[in-house]
């Protein structure tokens, strides 16, 4: 029997997971969020999502083509970056600025580091940080959701000519009988006006004005889907929200009414979106379980600190970027304890059989164990 066989290295079977599958699932879970975003803000939001995503994909293609970075379009990672970036921008953000945001996200956030897996910072947030620095006025201009003509009429600022300043949204809103405050996000309204948006509005975002993206409830649902299918680590969002909630509660309890209640802290602005979709970005978060808790806690705390004590209304973006920067360090100090190296020599609860106490104490006393004379046994 002459058979051509191949030599391969074990293991000879592969698990079902692939990068494409993970990324595609993230895209699926973002789809309802984007849909709701469009439902809230109309064609401006739709155009924004399409343009930003397209520019991310185009940039990715350019960088992959020129050999600047690894990866390919088919891995969906650029699509995710584009969708997330679009969700963090105001719906009436001028489209040409969206293109700038998309390109800078891919160039500064991804290609610079070598592409998928190598990036240190979340590309979507890098893109947002760039346009936040470049166009601070445009990025702080929000429009109310559920405007009457939102499916037929663009928000005028969307359609600004490239390089040109966008039309005055405030004037446009005034013409529609909205007061100037309508274009401020709940966080900005709290920061500058001291107005705390009611809780139910925040959670559902079915009325009023949402600063970043759609209803936190929807985001949490989509995040739960990802976490249950284990396409995302559940520890990070819980750590972020938990630590933000706790630190806000602490400040609220100590300093009282000068600060909003923790509930407002959690559900206003982009904290939920950031915790569920941005902080969990795999390449930029720690891989070690303990590291994830630490990383999440750091982001939550930083968010609250930035929101309360800085001139900025929103702090999630910078908190996550700082968390990203701290990731290698966190990973270093939270390496998992290898099997048999911890203090776990004491029996765990509910073991079926107990060990003769002599053997445990002998081991703990550092008694000399027989010298290793042969190789470790392998499992079958």
């Amino acid at each position, binding site marked *: 029997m002459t058979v051509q066989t191949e030599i391969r290295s074990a293991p000879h079977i592969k698990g079902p997971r692939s990068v494409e599958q993970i990324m595609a699932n993230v895209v699926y879970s973002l789809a309802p969020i984007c849909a709701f975003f469009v439902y809230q803000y109309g064609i401006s939001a739709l155009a924004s999502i399409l343009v930003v995503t397209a520019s991310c994909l185009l940039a990715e293609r350019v960088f992959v083509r020129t050999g600047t970075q690894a990866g390919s379009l088919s891995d969906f990672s650029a699509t995710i970056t584009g969708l997330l970036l679009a969700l963090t921008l105001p719906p009436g953000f*001028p489209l040409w*600025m969206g293109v700038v945001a998309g390109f800078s996200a891919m160039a*500064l956030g991804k290609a610079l580091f070598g592409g998928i897996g190598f990036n240190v910072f979340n590309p979507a947030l890098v893109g947002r940080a760039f346009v936040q*620095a*470049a*166009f601070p006025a*445009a990025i702080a201009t929000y429009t109310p959701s559920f405007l009457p003509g939102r499916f037929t009429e663009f928000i005028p600022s969307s359609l600004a000519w490239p*390089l040109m*300043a966008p039309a005055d949204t405030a004037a446009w809103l005034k013409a529609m009988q909205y007061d100037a405050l309508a274009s401020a996000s709940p966080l900005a309204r709290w920061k500058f006006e001291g107005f705390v948006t009611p809780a139910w509005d925040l959670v559902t975002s079915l009325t009023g004005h949402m600063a970043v993206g759609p209803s936190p409830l929807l985001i949490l649902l989509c995040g739960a889907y990802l976490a249950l299918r284990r396409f995302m680590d559940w520890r990070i969002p819980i750590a972020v929200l938990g630590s933000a909630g706790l630190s806000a509660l602490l400040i609220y309890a100590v300093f009282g009414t000068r600060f909003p209640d923790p509930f407002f802290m959690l559900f206003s602005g982009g904290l939920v979106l950031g915790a569920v979709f941005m902080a969990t970005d795999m390449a930029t978060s720690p891989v070690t379980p303990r590291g994830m808790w630490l990383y999440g806690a750091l982001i939550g705390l930083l968010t609250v600190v930035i929101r309360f004590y800085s001139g900025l209304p929103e702090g999630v973006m910078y908190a996550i970027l700082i968390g990203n920067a701290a990731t290698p360090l966190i990973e270093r100090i939270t390496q998992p304890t290898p099997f048999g190296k911890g203090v776990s020599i004491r029996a765990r609860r509910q073991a079926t059989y107990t060990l003769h106490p002599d053997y445990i104490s002998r081991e703990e006393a550092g008694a000399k164990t027989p010298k290793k004379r042969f190789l470790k046994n392998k499992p079958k």
Partner: protein
Amino acid sequence: MSDLSQTRTFDEFMEGIWRQNPVFVMVLGMCPTLAVTVSAMNALSMGLATAFVLVCSCGLVSLMRNIVPKEVRIATYIVIIATFVTVVDYAIQAVSLAVYDALGAFIQLIVVNCIILGRAEAHASKHPPATAMVNALGMSLGFVIGLLALGTVREVLGAGTLFGVSLFGANFQPWVVMVLPPGGFIVLGAWLLLFSTLKQRKEVRLAEQGGGHGA
């Protein structure tokens, strides 16, 4: 003979502009490069100020190269450079206060610009005045080009103007980040990327043509 010396002079001149460009190749003098290139005008003034100091001090250093003992040469260079920096400082104040305010402390900081001390020590102290000054001129031209490259981009995107002339009309949306320090880093990074890409391409081409000459 004269041909040879002419090409040599030309080489000395071009060295600073291309092969050893202080900004794009040697990445020297980054402090003023990043800080003052908010506009093309500032970049040009800074570049010219540095050029003046560089050329004058290199000339003087070269003149004195045989009489200055080795032990005190650095002290001498610093004194000479500081002198010309002070002169430039006064001159700018006299010419335009606006430019002086925009450049701020960076005029005085030309003293510690390593391009100048580096050139004085590595080149001017070993060559006759003419050569030294030609080389210094090339270097400072390279520096001016570098600063202008940054300043132009940052001014065009950051203010929509070039040397104060509006390019896009009144409705231009300025890119605030460009006039902030991060913008300086981003633009500098982009230029460095462009330069090294060009250089690499050239080397590859040379290697293909010359067959092993590319070292």
